[in-house]
């Protein structure tokens, strides 16, 4: 337990130390590069804003991610079970995923004008559903036929086979994708928060730091985002341990 906590903490402290050293050795002023020691005052000065904005970023990211889980799993099921759908939809999905999502910000903010929450959630969703859809699709389409046959030979329905075999068997792949998607969703949320005018959330706080030349604030926002990202990542790890812990071969 001590080892589990101590090793990452030590790594983070080393990282902060090196960062501080870099800024100190180059004698960079605050308006060029903030150092870790500048951050606590920045956090303290804007502590209420950080809480409010941080919460906004977090809930919109989580809602976008949940949407990505639902829609991504559905698409994954469609392309996983139907070869026709797989052949038809794959190029479309890959093409959509290849579009830099920043280019879509003006598009969606024009369609849904003023709907800031909605736009942000939509972007978080669009950027994060792809890994989930692909992994669920691959998990289902690569299910060994024997796994199906042990239940099919007994006359089990397709739904029963899905629930008892295909779904649990796909869970490890699903959680692997969810870890990627969780961080992607943050990128989506912040993209909209930073780019759209009069935005809210940590992205908007970053933007205001930039406008005012407040480098410590900007870096403080980045750290806050990193902390939120780590929190969400470990939330996914917790869910994975709960629902797909059997896939972990450690110690056997």
């Amino acid at each position, binding site marked *: 337990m001590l080892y589990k906590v101590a090793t990452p903490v030590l790594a983070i402290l080393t990282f902060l130390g090196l960062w501080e050293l870099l800024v100190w050795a180059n004698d960079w002023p605050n308006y060029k590069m903030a150092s870790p020691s500048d951050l606590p005052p920045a956090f303290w000065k804007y502590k209420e804003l950080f809480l409010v904005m941080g919460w906004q970023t977090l809930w919109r990211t989580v809602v976008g991610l949940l949407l990505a889980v639902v829609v991504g799993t559905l698409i994954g099921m469609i392309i996983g079970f139907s070869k026709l759908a797989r052949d038809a939809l794959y190029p479309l999905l890959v093409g959509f995923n290849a579009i830099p999502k920043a280019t879509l910000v003006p598009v969606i903010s024009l369609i849904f004008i003023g709907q800031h929450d909605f736009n942000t959630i939509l972007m978080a969703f669009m950027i994060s559903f792809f890994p989930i859809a692909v992994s669920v699709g691959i998990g289902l389409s690569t299910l060994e036929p*024997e796994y199906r*046959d*042990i*239940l*099919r*030979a007994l006359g*089990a329905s397709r739904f029963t086979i899905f629930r008892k075999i295909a779904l649990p068997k796909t*869970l490890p792949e699903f959680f692997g994708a969810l870890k990627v998607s969780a961080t992607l969703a943050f990128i989506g949320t912040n993209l909209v928060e930073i780019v759209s005018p009069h935005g809210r959330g940590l992205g908007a706080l970053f933007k205001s730091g930039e406008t005012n030349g407040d480098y410590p604030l900007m870096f403080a926002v980045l750290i806050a985002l990193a902390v939120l990202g780590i929190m969400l990542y470990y939330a996914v790890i917790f869910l994975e341990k709960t629902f797909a812990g059997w896939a972990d071969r450690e110690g*056997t």
Partner: protein
Amino acid sequence: MLDGLDVAVPAGTFAAVVGPSGCGKSTLTKLVAGLMKPDEGEVWLHGERVTGPRKTVGMAFQNPVLLEWRTILDNVILPLEIVAPKMPTKDRTARAMDLLEMVGLSGFENKRPSELSGGMRQRASLCRSIVHKPDVLILDEPFGALDAFTREDLWQTMRDLRAAEPFTVVLITHDLRESVFLGDQVIVLSGRPARTQFVMDVDLPADRTLDVLFTPKAADMLHTLRDQIKIAQGRTEEGSA
């Protein structure tokens, strides 16, 4: 794949099916299990024509296909969840535990499949295939991936299970010794398209031990079967194609 195949297995007996690779033995298991429909002809089980999957069939494959997220006990119970959804959990557990004890897996019921050896997993897979008391058990090379000694252990387990429970068995195998040790009759299929080429009744006591394989009688039977396989492969002399 299969053509002119005429196989009759009397109820309650053990039929071992051997033949060259790719002659359609696995297709035969799918037909019997109702997972595939014959283009022509019919499959009958216990006086009923097979038109689709049925609850009275058990299957085991070369790959034990145990569900990694379930314990050994829950893996064995799985068919009961489909076939007898109303059966009380207590009875299901009791039934599964009886079988696990019979195959020597007592004490392993709460382990995950990944914690067991290949032979133990195959034992669990056999338990799962008969937990719902099927009329017909279809075994598609269940011992094929095991080492020779483990395989012989499993043969004896299979023999004991059969002594304890009545079911008809169709065993697909590549191992002639296995077919003679376990079978009441051995059916040799010819190469593609597969036909019934040869049927041999195994005239050995039901409670046979491994020693029986070293008797002249068994040696004669193995020799006959070997010759039949050679014919099935389209070879007349040793080594020529």
